[in-house]
């Protein structure tokens, strides 16, 4: 029982060129990504491509069992010709264009704190990308927003990924996670002005995403969005692992919201894997309750359970909390990240307790409450109704990634919002990878051997070290290639050629 788990987030940012309604979002997104790709540490020796080769003959390879297998560059080039920008960062993250949005996928991390740090680093990456894009002569300023809807019917995702044991039955995941996902928004919702997909009904709701979900389980992400997504590309050994792809979350600015989002989810997954949940929290109609919970910031809505009980979202979160606490207490001493596990539990308890007394008590920690506090302030001071454009602007600008314009960032700057990390730590995470996953290997290869790295992906790095064929190093184990495993090797090897020789001889 632990919050420890290989995880990561992937966020599509809203992109807009004020005054240029005809701007093509694929073009502006590419400009943003390419502008960041021009940073000095990423241009040394040409830019590495993303390796789309999912089905590899080396799929069963483990860790660093290096192989000189023939790699067809033409195949990868064909993907590149799709023309969408793609940059692999020295922190192990991927910055690219997905559909019509710039997207940042964090490097793989092993715990909630690191997930927050590298997710936050992604915000700074986006802010700098738009700053750089604006310096191109003739360019219009491009604004980026870490939100999930334009309030006109479009939604874009903030996904989480969790590595799970393959042996855990998917039906168990669906049964237990559904009530958890329907209700966790009271902790990690980002807040939204407007009800309905197009936001046309005036009002405030807890979640950006709730109104866009239509089914309980499914593979789709762009239409008929499911509460539980069944995509299963583990980017790792598929016999051992499943990657749970979570699409229901909001993009959070608050570090505490993100921390609790991934921390509590990780705890619940752990209980599912250990078969520690009784399964008595089934919700009768999860899709409509998801919306009903979101539409009630007073947290009084009663959710109808399958067994006939009626519980608030807070009751259901308390039930998950109590079980997680009992489960963790019973396993003290077995968890190498015990301190963080109990920190997540303590904060979760404190937040639920305050939400129960008065949600306003969480105004300096949770996104939806912080946003609602601003909105209520304006409503009172300027007698504004929920249909007010000013309130819609506050909602939008809360998520502006610019430190000087984003309202979340203004709240942090004046001490009205708590954070987990200092700015120096976030800046460092823009360029440095986490030390305890394969992202360390990927990131250091990019930082140190850029001219020899042809391409990379989640589970491989491909080198050109002057041999007849390219060399592909598979990384099917997410927790190998860490600083502990290969840090000294990188310190010792001046070139990728040296590194590959060291790996084969070792």
């Amino acid at each position, binding site marked *: 029982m632990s919050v420890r788990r290989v995880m990561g987030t992937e966020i599509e940012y809203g992109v807009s060129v004020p005054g240029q309604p005809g701007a093509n979002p694929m073009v502006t997104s590419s400009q943003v990504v390419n502008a960041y790709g021009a940073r000095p540490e990423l241009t040394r020796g040409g830019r590495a491509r993303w390796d789309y080769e999912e089905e590899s003959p080396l799929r069963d390879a483990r860790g660093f069992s290096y192989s000189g297998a023939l790699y067809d560059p033409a195949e990868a080039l064909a993907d590149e010709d799709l023309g969408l920008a793609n940059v692999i960062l020295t922190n192990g993250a991927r910055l690219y264009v997905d559909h019509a949005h710039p997207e940042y996928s964090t490097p793989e991390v092993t715990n909630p704190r690191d997930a927050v740090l590298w997710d936050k680093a992604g915000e700074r990456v986006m802010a700098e990308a738009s700053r750089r894009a604006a310096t191109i002569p003739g360019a219009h300023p491009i604004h980026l927003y870490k939100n999930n809807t334009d309030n006109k019917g479009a939604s874009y995702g903030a996904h989480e990924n969790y590595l799970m044991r393959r042996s855990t039955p998917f039906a168990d995941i669906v049964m237990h996670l559904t009530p958890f996902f329907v209700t966790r928004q009271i902790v990690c919702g980002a807040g939204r002005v407007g009800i309905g997909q197009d936001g046309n009904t005036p009002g405030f709701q807890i979640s950006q995403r709730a109104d866009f979900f239509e089914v309980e389980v499914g593979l789709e992400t*762009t239409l008929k969005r499911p509460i539980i997504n069944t995509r299963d590309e583990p980017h790792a050994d598929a016999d051992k692992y499943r990657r749970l792809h979570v699409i229901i979350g909001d993009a959070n600015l608050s570090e505490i919201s993100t921390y609790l989002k991934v921390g509590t989810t990780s705890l619940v997954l752990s209980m599912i894997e250990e078969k520690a949940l009784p399964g008595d929290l089934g919700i009768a109609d999860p899709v409509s309750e998801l919306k009903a919970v979101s539409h009630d910031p007073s947290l009084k809505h009663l959710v109808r359970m399958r067994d006939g009980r009626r519980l608030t979202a807070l009751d259901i979160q308390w*039930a998950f909390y109590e079980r997680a606490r009992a489960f963790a207490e019973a396993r003290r001493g077995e968890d190498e990240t015990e301190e963080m596990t109990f920190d997540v539990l303590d904060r979760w308890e404190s937040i639920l307790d305050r939400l129960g007394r008065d949600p306003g008590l969480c105004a300096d920690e949770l996104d939806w409450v912080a946003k609602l506090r601003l909105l209520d302030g304006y409503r009172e001071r300027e007698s504004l109704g929920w249909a007010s454009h000013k309130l819609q602007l506050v909602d*939008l600008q809360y998520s502006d990634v610019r430190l000087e314009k984003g309202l979340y960032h203004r709240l942090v700057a004046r001490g009205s919002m708590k954070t987990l990390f200092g700015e120096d730590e976030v800046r460092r995470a823009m360029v440095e990878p986490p030390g305890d996953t394969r992202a360390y290997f990927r990131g250091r290869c990019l930082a140190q051997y850029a001219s020899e790295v042809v391409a990379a992906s989640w589970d491989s790095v491909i080198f050109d070290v002057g041999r007849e064929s390219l060399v592909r190093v598979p990384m099917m184990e997410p927790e190998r290639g860490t600083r502990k495993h290969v840090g000294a090797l990188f310190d010792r090897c001046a070139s990728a050629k040296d590194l590959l020789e060291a790996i084969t001889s070792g």
Partner: protein
Amino acid sequence: MATREPGGQSQSGRSRREEDIDQAPAPEANAEVTERHEKLSEDVDDLLDEIDSVLEENAEEFVRGYVQKGGE
């Protein structure tokens, strides 16, 4: 409270909150809430003034111009 019903789940927050009600003197909790609220509302005017200074001009046009394509 409407969620109260006989034979409800024993582990849930409901029992926790009932404990709270039994054990924690309510006036104390209210005092904390009130104090916190006072501090927050003193703050709110300054806060809104500061936010006003960074908000984009012409809210209506700005919000209307924010149009996205779906993603994911």
